[in-house]
């Protein structure tokens, strides 16, 4: 009996100070699944913004990664709602969010923003971009794969100059619509947290903005990562002009993100509102490693330093070293943004809303809120992306070196 009691005591969260009795449950109600939900959504928004740089802002140096970025956005978007779905107590009732939404709820509105983004923006833009290729490939590819291409043309096989021009015009329009949509998509995820006024760690008007900026940063980092990995797998040479331009955008996006997040910290410190003491405890103790080491040092300062150095000394750093530095920065930023999501989601649940106590918990391995299912969901988008790349990104056609200098920052 003693053993059983010990197990129960060990499984119960450790509580310091006073927490409301209902808060002393077995684990935080939002666990690792809700950590990866904004992470995946952010990668989608970021990858799309990255692709928009080519389509809307005409940064031609990034042309080799345009389609890769779009497919990355699609692969991750298809999995974006999975963590939410798995987390629900009654997933079989999830359709109610769309069928009878409660319009004041940020979560309900997110369902529509998601549907709009997937159906009206991303899939449409991809289709207009790939339509001519679908027509060509459906004629040259035999078997099942050819059938897939044929189906994907949706019967529109017109390749006349007029129809191609229409495709391009539609893509441009969709990209322009897509940028605010991507901001809305991830801004809304930030709003889910920022709207909770009961929780000073979350309830903050800067939250959607911080989510959008960190999303852009993580999305570009993911595209850098994917591009280098894909060229390595395919034994192709990396287009350094493209990679350098990505690194440049990554650096500036990260810089803006870091400034806004610092502003948030300064504002909190200056205002020192109710509950500030417990927030200090969070930074100093409960989230010390994930916030100070993971998010700030590894995810922000080191990549800023490396990418900043590259902006200053690009010509003096050999290509191989540059490639490695950019790759490492991308990987560290992706890790840092994951830590940021952890710090936001878990940080908001590590203290009591009475501001008199803090809680900690042991992460479960299996079960609905265990980290195994979160890791499995995180592995899904790369698998989907592999299939998409295999189907739609042929080795000869794409990832070829850019023919033009970037119009933005060409001399940097």
């Amino acid at each position, binding site marked *: 009996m003693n053993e059983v009691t010990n197990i129960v005591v060990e499984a119960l969260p450790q509580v310091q100070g006073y927490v409301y009795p*209902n808060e002393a449950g077995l684990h935080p109600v939002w666990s690792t699944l809700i950590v990866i939900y904004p992470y995946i959504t952010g990668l989608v928004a970021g990858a799309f913004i990255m692709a928009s740089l080519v389509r809307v802002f005409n940064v031609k140096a990034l042309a080799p990664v345009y389609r890769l970025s779009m497919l990355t956005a699609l692969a991750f978007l298809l999995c974006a709602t999975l963590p939410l779905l798995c987390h629900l107590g*009654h997933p079989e009732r999830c359709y109610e969010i769309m069928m*009878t939404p409660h319009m004041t709820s940020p979560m309900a509105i997110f369902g529509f923003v998601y549907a709009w983004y997937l159906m009206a923006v991303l899939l449409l833009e991809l289709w207009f971009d790939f339509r001519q290729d679908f027509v060509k490939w459906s004629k040259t590819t035999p078997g099942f794969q050819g059938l897939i291409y044929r189906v994907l043309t949706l019967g529109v096989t017109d390749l006349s100059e007029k129809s191609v021009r229409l495709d391009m015009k539609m893509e441009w329009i969709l990209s322009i619509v897509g940028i605010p949509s991507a901001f809305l998509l991830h801004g809304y995820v930030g709003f889910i947290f920022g709207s909770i006024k009961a929780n000073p760690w979350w309830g903050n008007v800067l939250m959607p903005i911080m989510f959008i900026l960190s999303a852009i940063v993580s999305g570009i980092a993911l595209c850098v990562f994917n591009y280098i990995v894909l060229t390595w797998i395919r034994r192709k040479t990396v287009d350094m002009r493209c990679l350098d331009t990505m690194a440049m955008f990554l650096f500036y996006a990260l810089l803006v993100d870091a400034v806004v997040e610092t502003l948030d910290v300064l504002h909190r410190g200056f205002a020192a509102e109710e509950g500030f003491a417990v927030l200090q405890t969070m930074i100093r103790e409960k989230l010390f490693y994930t916030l100070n080491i993971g998010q700030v040092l590894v995810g922000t300062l080191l990549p800023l330093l490396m990418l900043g150095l590259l902006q200053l000394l690009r010509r003096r750093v050999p290509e191989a070293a540059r490639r490695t530095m950019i790759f490492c920065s991308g990987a560290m930023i992706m890790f840092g943004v994951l830590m940021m999501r952890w710090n936001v989601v878990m940080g908001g649940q590590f203290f009591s809303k009475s501001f008199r106590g803090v809680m900690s918990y042991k992460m479960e391995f299996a079960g609905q809120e265990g980290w195994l299912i979160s890791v499995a969901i995180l592995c899904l988008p790369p698998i989907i992306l592999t299939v998409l790349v295999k189907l739609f990104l042929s080795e000869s056609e794409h990832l070829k070196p850019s023919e033009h200098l970037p119009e933005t920052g060409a001399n940097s």
Partner: protein
Amino acid sequence: MGGAIAGLFMISAARAAKAAVQTVLVSTSAPKGYDPTQHKWLMCVDDNKCIGCGLCAEACKKENGVPEGPYFRTWIERYIIPKPKPGSGQTRGEAIVDSPNGGIPNGGVSAFPEPTLPKDQIEHAFFVPKLCNLCENPPCVQVCPVGATFRAPDGAVLVDPKYCIGCAFCVQACPYGARFLNPVTKTAEKCTLCYHRITRNLKPACVEICPAEARIFGDLNNLHTDDPIQKFYEKNRVQVLKPHLGTEPRVLYAGLDKEVR
């Protein structure tokens, strides 16, 4: 375009149908004939009277079948305010707060252990009953993605367990820690003011059992001259919890200390 318009029509038709079904079949446990528009329920707590016996929390668990463990629709908090350290320049020491098992007595023995501080070092000690604050602007209702949690016209904030999807957004949004996810039904749960009782002219279980009459319950729309609620209002200056959040609670306290959140 036509498809989109047709889709919108379908969604609005489905919404209308669902709303119609909901108004008829919504699970509130009220008897037939109960008209929520004819009542305005109010809960008041005279904090000077609470003796911390915890019978209210125990009665609530039994009456409503609340699961064992850290799940409470109502609970009792104990506040111990130490005297300030000499020369500290403070008016009082840092409050010590606890609520072991929600204050529910253990087989007739008080749930609250003897204070660790010697009596001569304690300036004040008091108990505070807590429950859903029946907000006029409930954040929990605002965030529910499907509208499973709602505010009835009589002021009660209720959850339809047949409709709740168990996302726990409301648990996060409640500033008072009054909500939890039921581990059995996997839906959100909270104090309903014993809706199955008050709609049958009975008092909530916690009010019924309170030996000190610290909890006062009534209907603002049907006040009579010697109504306890009326007396409570006349006798006391009242306060609410966390007023700065703008939730406008309908649970009113008399005799609260500034330490209570």
